[in-house]
């Protein structure tokens, strides 16, 4: 088994987050009406980092929520066991907000489809955008990210793994070769 290749290190992740924060503010023309919703797990940690970057740049507080999309998955009943459920906590009304969904890796797009379905059960945002740390391609649905930390060309059988300080004890993005 080959050692996993590191695609991003901690400095690159930090700079990517900062850049995305700037891009979000630029697109939204400031922090007004902005809300971040991270997809559990790791998307929520990235959303909190983006929020604190935005606060640092703009001096404004942006509400952050965490969304678990398990109940909206399209593969329920196809796996042996019901998928494990994580916490959902959106402590603010998303109606009228510009919501940026935040996830670590964008791959087939199915998670984002589920997240958009879940989100509308909480209210009616003015608009929904998508920010991801890594876009590795291979979309199976007509979905694209508005803000991307890094585009990484991959084979479909490879796996991209994001490690974050908050849960994994380090900041890094790895590519594991499953066929290795």
């Amino acid at each position: 088994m080959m050692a996993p290749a590191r695609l991003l290190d901690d400095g690159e992740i930090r700079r990517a987050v900062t850049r995305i924060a700037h891009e979000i503010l630029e697109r939204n023309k400031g922090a007004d009406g902005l809300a971040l919703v991270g997809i559990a797990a790791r998307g929520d940690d990235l959303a909190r980092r983006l929020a604190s970057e935005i606060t640092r740049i703009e001096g404004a507080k942006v509400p952050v929520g965490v969304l678990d999309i398990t109940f909206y998955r399209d593969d329920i009943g196809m796996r042996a066991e019901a998928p494990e459920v994580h916490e959902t906590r959106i402590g603010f009304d998303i109606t009228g907000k510009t919501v940026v969904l935040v996830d670590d890796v964008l791959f087939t797009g199915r998670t984002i489809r589920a997240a958009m379905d879940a989100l509308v059960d909480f209210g009616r945002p003015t608009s929904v955008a998508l920010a991801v740390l890594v876009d590795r391609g291979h979309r199976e649905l007509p979905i694209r990210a508005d803000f991307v930390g890094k585009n990484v060309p991959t084979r479909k059988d490879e796996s991209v793994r994001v490690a974050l300080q908050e849960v994994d004890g380090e900041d890094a993005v790895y590519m594991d070769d499953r066929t290795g």
Partner: protein
Amino acid sequence: MNKHLLSINDVSAEDVVRVLDTAESFREVGTRVIKKVPALRGRTVVNLFYENSTRTRISFELAAKRLSADVINFSTSGSSVSKGESLKDTALTLQAMGADAIVIRHSSSGSPYTLTKWVKGSVLNAGDGTHEHPTQALLDLYTIREKLGRFEGLRAAIVGDVLHSRVARSLSFGLLKMGAEVTLVGPPTLIPPDASAWGVQVSYDIDGVLPKLDVCYMLRVQRERQRQQYFPSVREYSRLFGLTRDRVAMLPEGCLIMHPGPMNRGVEIDSDVADLPQAVIEEQVTNGIAVRMSLLYLMLGGAVTEEVSERD
């Protein structure tokens, strides 16, 4: 999770925690603008109720609907025999309709076991005779964990007609499984023979038990038990075993008062006791929906298995 939920013993301690944790997520779903998730879209849940129990049926119905499952209610009072169609034929009919889960309430102990012989889907016991009522036990465990934060070392008393109570059986086994201590309290005629072999304590003296409790769980006592000579009179029963205002004063601070409903106010529990803040009887009902959603999700959210466990 086991395919069927026939007894609380079908659920391991680890799975109890999983059910309660998942129920936590469904409690959150209940706070959303739209309280419905598509998790069980396309699945069919049948409520097969041979006993009138509007409360339990509605709780299951709402749980299934909030998971986007299709729900069919099949209610009939009395036994299948008196109705003319056998349990087997009803089961085969429901099977032919493509039921993914059958929630059964029946006056005969063991009927859910019998049902599993003929249906491919999951069977959930919503109360069978004087045997078990596992979903009630799980929602009670949820309520206890929510209020007290733990099970290990908790001291619970289950008071009343334990002999005929399916709630008492499931809750006793559930609490014991989770590391709590259980004392069954009631007149000796209403304590099941050899119950101490379950690992519970048995007491005939409620006043000796109350001062040590974290949970005081009162059971419904039916008046017909007097006619069957389990106790001489309802008046004597409530004087000896009813939870009165005076007895509540003997409970430690923070002890929960629980009851599975429907209550006989003035028999096993005084009317004003049921309305005290430490009585969490309404919370039990609310939590019932989330716990049943959790069970349906965990049992039906996996792949469909096709085997029928015909035993002969």
